[in-house]
């Protein structure tokens, strides 16, 4: 793959890298037919970020379709080797005319070239190690709650929390939207608590199908929020019950960006229907209705080796699972089933085939059957493996 980014878009690309650097120390470059996807998966696989730059973003974008996989140039790079190229956006604006990225020429290196003023060309050959790419599948159309907000609104909400604040809880109901800092109970005694609330009218679009309190990592989101603010792009928020992941996304003509974060499950709401509890009785999924094809975390090939992270105490992070296909081939039957969606909230496609085009490839990732969905993640390991196409 070869692409050239021109002019002010170089700064945009740099800002995207900055945003992804908040999620993880590693990023994937994934050249696709429709554009270049840059992805990042957080530690413990509880967060995922993706910036897809469409062909319109580039002055030149060429993908060598008929080459073997290595030549496509899918690669995983440490963020700290890419970030310095785009560190200072002011100087990029001043001095860089264009940026050329070439992958697939070598098995071990990807080349970034910055063409600067005064005839200066800076060439960076960055080494990488792996080819496989992870991608989260998030059926946004199944989310009961959808918000759309101007980036300044979200910025005004998060500004009240210090940069060191790890997690926040976002609560929505038809009358009020509240964000407050979250801390584990044992830390709570001497910690200052902050709560910010505003009226749903302030959102451009506000649809709350189910009242919900979701707790997620704010630190990982800040990158996308600052990207959205600097480009004036409204932010869409899709989420559901606690435990289901939340997706923040922005888009315009030339790019789509999203960050998907796992949210804490509330153990009481997992076990059974609580009359009058936080569970909406009309909610589509119950743990016991799990279909048999729940993939286990431990048994998936090319997984980055992440078991589900289980936090001490009652609340557990809903881990991210590695499943099958990538991208648009999300016609997996499971994903249409709301119950399945609830279980495998974040599905990752491990792309191990030579050509990633939808439908053409047989993936051999394993998924696991389990009889009942237990809240306790350890019990899943007893399930038997089953292939999924």
């Amino acid at each position, binding site marked *: 793959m070869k692409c050239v980014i021109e002019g002010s878009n170089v700064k945009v690309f740099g800002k995207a890298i900055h945003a992804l650097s908040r999620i993880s120390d590693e990023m994937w470059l994934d050249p696709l037919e429709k554009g270049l996807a840059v992805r990042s998966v957080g530690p413990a696989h509880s967060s995922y970020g993706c910036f897809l730059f469409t062909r319109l973003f580039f002055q030149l974008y060429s993908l060598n379709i008929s080459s073997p996989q290595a030549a496509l140039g899918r690669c995983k790079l440490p963020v700290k080797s890419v970030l310095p190229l785009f560190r200072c956006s002011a100087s990029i604006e001043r001095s860089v005319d264009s940026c050329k990225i070439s992958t697939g020429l070598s098995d071990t290196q990807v080349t970034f070239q910055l063409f600067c003023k005064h005839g200066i060309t800076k060439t960076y050959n960055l080494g990488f190690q792996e080819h496989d790419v992870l991608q989260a599948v998030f059926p946004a159309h199944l989310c009961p709650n959808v918000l759309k907000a101007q980036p300044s*609104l979200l910025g*005004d909400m998060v*500004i*009240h929390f*210090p940069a060191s604040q790890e997690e926040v809880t976002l609560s929505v109901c038809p009358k009020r939207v509240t964000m407050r800092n979250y801390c584990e109970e044992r830390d*709570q*005694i*001497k*910690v*200052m*608590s*902050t*709560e*910010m*609330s*505003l*009226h749903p*009218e*302030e959102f451009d679009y506000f649809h709350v199908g189910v009242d919900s309190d979701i707790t997620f990592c704010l630190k990982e989101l800040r990158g996308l929020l600052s990207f959205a603010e600097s480009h004036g792009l409204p932010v869409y928020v899709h989420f559901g019950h606690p435990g289901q992941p939340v997706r923040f996304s922005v888009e315009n003509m030339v790019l789509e960006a999203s960050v998907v974060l796992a949210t804490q499950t509330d153990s009481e709401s997992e076990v059974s229907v609580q009359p009058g509890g936080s569970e909406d009785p009309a909610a589509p999924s119950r743990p016991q209705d799990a279909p048999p094809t729940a993939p286990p975390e431990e048994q998936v090939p090319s997984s980055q080796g992440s078991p589900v992270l289980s936090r001490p105490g009652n609340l557990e992070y809903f881990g991210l699972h590695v499943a099958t296909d990538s991208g648009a081939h999300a016609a997996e039957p499971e994903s249409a089933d709301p119950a399945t969606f609830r279980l495998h909230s974040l599905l990752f496609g491990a792309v191990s085939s030579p050509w990633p085009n939808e439908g053409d490839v047989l993936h051999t990732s394993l998924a696991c059957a389990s009889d009942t969905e237990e809240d306790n993640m350890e019990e899943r390991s007893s399930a038997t493996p089953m292939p999924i196409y």
Partner: protein
Amino acid sequence: MRFRAKILDVGCLNSFTRVVNTISKLTKTCTLRLTADNLYFMLSDKVANGGVSMWCELDQGNFFDEFQMEGVASDANEIYLELVPENLSRALRTAQNAKSLKAKLTKKHCPCLTLAAELPSLSSVSRVVTHDIPVDVIPRKLWHDFREPTVPDFDVSIYLPPLKTMKNVIDRMKNLSNFLVLEANRSGQMNLKIETDLVSVSTHFRDLGNPPCGDGGSQGASQDLETMAQARVDIKKLQQFLSSQQVNPSKAMCSKLIYPSIHLLPI
């Protein structure tokens, strides 16, 4: 024990915030004393060698539009709270454009000073930000630790040079030595000196001006104008004090120099 107060004026809110910011840079925890008419931020650091103590008295009427307080008892109508001023500073920082700020003493999981700011919003309903700042109530039997320090007799009183200049000098000196000798006389001269085995550095300031010798001046006019009064201080503490000052750098400061301590009074 009850406390409720409200600030409605943006200017008052800004001023109060600046005071709290200054205090938060000086110390990690301090004591807030509330009386019917005043607020006090106090710190008494009992470290023998070069500790910092601070006393700040504010007239509540200068800041608050409403101020109601009921102390621990009718014959002791005061409240003493220990808190982290950085929390207060952080709560105030993002409320600078608030339509109103309410403060009250509450009991959540522990006693808290709750600040609620009503912020302008795009809709008809205001945004509300609430901060619960955990505090410790200081029992009455410990109140005697927090008496107002008496201003002792001083030898020399002098206006300091622009803080920025002084801070620059002291920042450089800090790299060479832990202690600094500050000396000043009544002719408007001040020297900052450090001395180590390898090097000695001194910076001289002239024509600083001395405030009129008012209360507390010992020896009085009989003292030789040229005699320097000296004090040795920990550079880090001095630097901390200077960097905490949020006043306009061109504003003069009055410093009273007595052996062995320095009192610095912003004016």
